[in-house]
């Protein structure tokens, strides 16, 4: 019932949200998160590149989604994550959750994001006019996991 997609191609977040919400007359609440490539101060970013670990990425995300489905009363969940080169302003990834009650949909979406950030095997590299640099993990992202334990 849930859907996980790891892809190089762009996706249309609005179309995905509509498709995900369509015909859910049993579920009243849909939450989505969309992650966009920030251009950085004065548009310094030329592009972002995302590397991933193909053999692990799908199973790791599926495991995170299964955990969310067990923790909350969810009707459905969707995760799309891109890899490869990404232009500033374009979508990196999205998650969506559907539930009867909004508290479940919100909590599950935040949980999915927190775990995807720090436990799914993606690495971001930023290419600017000054050169290329791997994005460093933020301590806040690791800390964010502690609230779900």
């Amino acid at each position: 019932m849930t859907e996980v997609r790891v892809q190089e191609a762009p996706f249309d977040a609005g179309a995905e949200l509509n498709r995900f919400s369509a015909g859910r007359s049993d579920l009243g609440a849909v939450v989505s998160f969309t992650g966009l490539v920030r251009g950085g101060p004065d548009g310094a970013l030329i592009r972002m590149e995302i590397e991933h670990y193909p053999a692990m990425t799908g199973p790791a995300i599926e495991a995170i989604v299964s955990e969310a489905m067990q923790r909350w009363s969810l009707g459905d969940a969707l995760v799309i994550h891109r890899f490869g080169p990404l232009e500033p302003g374009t979508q990196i990834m999205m998650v969506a959750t559907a539930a009867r009650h909004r508290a479940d949909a919100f909590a599950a979406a935040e949980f999915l994001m927190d775990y995807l950030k720090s436990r799914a095997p993606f690495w971001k590299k930023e290419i600017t006019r000054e050169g290329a640099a791997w994005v460093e993990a933020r301590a806040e992202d690791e800390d964010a996991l502690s609230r779900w334990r």
Partner: protein
Amino acid sequence: MIDIVYFAWLRERIGLPRERIETDATTVGALVEELRGREERYALAFSDLSAIRVALDQELSDFDAPIATVREIAFFPPMTGG
């Protein structure tokens, strides 16, 4: 024989994405010690283990884990997806 895969700056510092090696190491940590002893680029790449994560057969693990039955070991920096 065991496959080792590297990602992000670990891949760049070591200079290859994947290699197959023969080893007598019984844990991840012992394997890392062996790699460090091979060449300067490995010593540099593995100089700060707190900045490195490990996965055994595509499951997150740690440096104490045994590797006797493992087919693929992955080394990479903390993930930055999402």
